C-alpha cells in the first residue's frame, strides 16, 4: 500500500533521513523503532504530506504521494495540541471538514466517536476545561474521524496513562480489523511485539533493520540455548564444541547457563550431555528479544 523508495531528507547539511526504503502492506501494522533523534518523526511527517522529501519518493497505492491523498491519511504527531478556546465539537468538526468530510457526515462521526469513547457529555465544553486524558482521547478521535485508510501515529502511547494506553491499543487493533493500515513509532518494545506485523529500526537517519518480527528475531538466533539445572554448581567442563555465554541463577535459585554451539545439529548432543552429567530440568532455545536486538543495533551502529 505504501512504498518508500530511497528517501532522503536534509536539514541544512545534516542528513536526517538517509536512503530509507520501506514497504507497508495493506491492513498491516508497521512499527517504526529508533532512539530519539533517529529521524522517525521526519519520516512520518513526509508520509503524512506535512513535508516533502528532498530525494526519493513515496508511493501510495503505486501513485506518488500528493496532497490529493490527504483525505485517506490520518496523522497524530508526537506533540499533541488542540485549540484551547474551542469547544470539543467545533474542534472535531473543523478537523473533519479540513479532511474533506461533509458537515453532516462529520457530525455523525463526531457523535459516534464521542459516544464510543464515553466523552459525549463533554461535547460542548471548551478544551481548556478538559482533563489531559480527555484531551488525548479527543486528539485521537480527531485523527481517525475521517476514517483514514492509512494511519500514522507518532508515539501513540506516550503521555497516556496505562488505562488510556490500553484503550489506544484496543482501538489500533480494532482499526486494523476494519482494514486500516497503521504505522506507528514507539520505543516501547512490548507494544511492538504485541501489535506489529512488521517493523523497521532507524538509527542516525539510516534504516538498520526491517522485516516481520518473527523473521527478525529468528535471524538473530545464534545457536544459543538456555539450560536449567537442579544443582547450583556450575558444570566444571562443557563439551569442547560448546561455549559458555552466560551464567545466572533463576528466581528459584536454579542454575541457568546459556550455551552456544557451533553446529545446530549438536543440539541433541547438548541435551544428552546436560541430562546425563548434570540434572537438567529445562532446555530452551534462546532467541533474542526485540529489546535486545534494538539495543544491540543502536549500540553497534
Amino acid at each position, binding site marked *: 500500500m505504501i512504498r518508500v523508495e530511497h528517501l532522503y531528507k536534509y536539514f541544512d547539511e545534516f542528513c536526517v533521513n538517509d536512503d530509507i526504503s520501506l514497504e507497508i502492506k495493506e491492513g498491516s501494522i508497521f512499527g517504526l523503532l529508533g532512539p530519539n533523534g533517529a529521524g522517525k518523526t521526519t519520516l512520518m*511527517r513526509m508520509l503524512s504530506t506535512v513535508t516533502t522529501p528532498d530525494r526519493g519518493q513515496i508511493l501510495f497505492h503505486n501513485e506518488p504521494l500528493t496532497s490529493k491523498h490527504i483525505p485517506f491519511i490520518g496523522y497524530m504527531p508526537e506533540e499533541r*495540541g488542540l485549540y484551547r478556546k474551542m469547544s470539543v465539537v467545533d474542534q472535531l468538526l473543523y478537523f473533519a471538514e479540513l479532511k474533506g468530510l461533509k458537515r453532516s457526515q462529520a457530525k455523525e462521526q463526531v457523535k459516534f466517536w464521542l459516544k464510543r469513547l464515553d466523552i459525549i457529555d463533554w461535547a460542548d465544553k471548551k478544551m481548556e476545561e478538559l482533563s489531559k486524558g480527555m484531551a488525548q482521547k479527543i486528539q485521537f478521535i480527531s485523527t481517525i474521524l475521517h476514517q483514514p485508510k492509512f494511519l500514522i501515529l507518532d508515539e501513540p502511547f506516550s503521555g497516556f496513562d496505562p488505562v488510556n494506553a490500553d484503550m489506544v491499543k484496543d482501538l489500533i487493533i480494532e482499526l486494523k480489523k476494519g482494514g486500516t493500515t497503521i504505522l506507528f513509532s514507539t520505543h516501547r518494545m512490548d507494544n511492538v511485539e504485541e501489535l506489529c506485523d512488521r517493523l523497521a529500526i532507524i538509527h542516525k537517519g539510516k534504516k538498520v533493520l526491517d522485516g516481520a518480527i518473527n523473521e527478525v528475531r529468528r535471524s538473530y538466533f545464534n545457536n544459543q540455548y538456555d539450560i536449567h539445572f537442579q544443582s547450583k554448581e556450575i558444570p566444571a567442563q562443557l563439551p569442547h564444541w560448546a561455549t559458555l555465554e552466560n551464567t545466572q541463577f533463576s528466581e528459584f535459585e536454579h542454575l541457568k547457563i546459556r550455551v552456544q554451539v557451533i553446529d545446530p545439529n549438536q543440539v541433541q548432543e547438548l541435551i544428552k550431555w546436560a541430562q546425563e552429567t548434570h540434572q537438567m530440568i529445562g532446555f530452551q532455545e534462546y532467541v533474542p528479544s526485540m529489546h535486545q536486538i534494538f539495543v544491540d543495533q543502536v549500540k553497534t551502529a
Partner: protein
Amino acid sequence: MKNILVVLKKEYLTRIKNKSFIIMTFLGPVLMVAFYAGAIYFATQGAEDNRTQTIYLSTQKDWIRPGESTINHNKFIFIKTNQNRDSILASIQNNTADAWLNINDLDLQSLDSSELISNGSLSLTQNSAIEGFIKDEIRQKILQNQGINKSTLDSAEVIGGINSLEIGDSGNTESSATGIKSGIGFAMALIIYMFIFIYGSMVMRSAMEEKTNRIVEVIVSSVKPFELMMGKILGVALVGLSQFFAWIILTLALISGASAFLKIGNTTIPQGLETPNGLTNSNKGLELISQLHSLPYWEIGIVFLLFFLGGYLLYSSIFAAIGSAVNQDTDVQQFMMPVSLPLVFGFIIAQSVVFQAPHGKLAKIFSMIPLTSPVVMAVRAPFGVPLSEIVASFTLLALTFILMVWLSAKIYRIGILSYGKKPTWKDFVKWIRQS
C-alpha cells in the same frame, strides 16, 4: 481552495463568537466618542488658567487701568505701585504679588526696556496676553496721537474669510472644503493604520498560537500551509470588516441620535440671545453642509476600501510569517519593530506633509511606495488624486502583496514546524531559499 474557506470560516466564527469581540463592537463607538469628547473637554478646560494673578504695575503713563481686568480669558489684578525695585522684588519673592510689570513708556515704539518679572506662576499664555495687550494699547495710543480715533479704526476692520472655491469636473465652482477634506483624509489614514496593527497582529497571534499549542502539525497534515495562512488572513480581514461596518452603523446611529438631541436644544434658544453675527454662522453651517455634499464620496470610498484591504493584506502576510517563526511572545517585538516602521513613517508623512501639500512631491512619492501607500493615499484621497496615480499605486501595492504572500508562505511553511531557538533574519532568508 475549499480548505481556505474552511479555515476562513473557522477563524471568522470563533472570533465573532468571542465575548471580547462583541463587547468591543458595541462599546467601541461609545468609547471612541467618549474618548474624543473627553480629550476635547480636557483640552479646552485645561488650557485656561483660572487663577487670578496679582500684578504690580509701574508705569509713567496710565495705559493700563489698575484693578481687575480680563485679557483673553486670563484674569489679572493690576496694582499700581511706586515702591522701589528692591522692595517690589521682595514682595514678589514672598508671594504678596505674582509679578511686576515695569513699563518704560517714555519711548512709545519699543518695549525693549520694559520688563515683566514673576515668581514663576505666570503661564506662557498669561505672559503673551499681557504683552499683546500692552502692544495693542500702545498702537492705539500712537494712532490717536496721529488723530485717528477708535471708531475710525473699527470701521477699517475687515470681517469674514475668503471663500475658497475650486473648479470641479463639470466646470462649476465648488467650495474646496480643505478643512473637511483634511479631516476625512486623516480619519481614513488613522483607521487604516490602526486596522493594520490591530488585525495584523491578530493574524500573527493566531499563527503563533497554533504553533505554540502544537496544533499546527495536525492542521498542515490536512491543509497546505499556504491555504492555512490565506484562510487566516482573509478570515481575520472579514472579522475586521464586520467590526468596522458595525462601528460605522453604530456611529451613524449615535450621531443622528445626538444631532436630533441637539436640534431640540437649538430651538429652545430664545431669539433675543442670538448673536449679531448669527447670520454668518448659519451661512457657515450651510456652507459646511454643501461642502460635505460636494465631496466625491464614491471615489473616496472606493479608494479607501482598496487601500484599506491592500494595506492590511500586505502587512498581515508579513505578520503571519513572523508569527509562524517565533516561539514566544517576547521574541515578537524584535521582528515587529522593523516591519512596522514603514507604516509608522507613512502615518507621520500623512499627518505632516500631506496636509500642507496633498499633491506635493513627497506625498506623491510615499503614496507610490507600497509599504506607506495605504496610509498616505488615504489622506490624499479626499483631495482628488488622478486616476492614473491611483491605478499605478494600487497595482504596485497588489504586486507587492502577491510577492510578499509568496515569500511569507515559504517562511510560514518552515517556520511553523521549527521549534527551539529564536529565529534570526538569516533563518528567514534561508527558509525562503529552502522551499
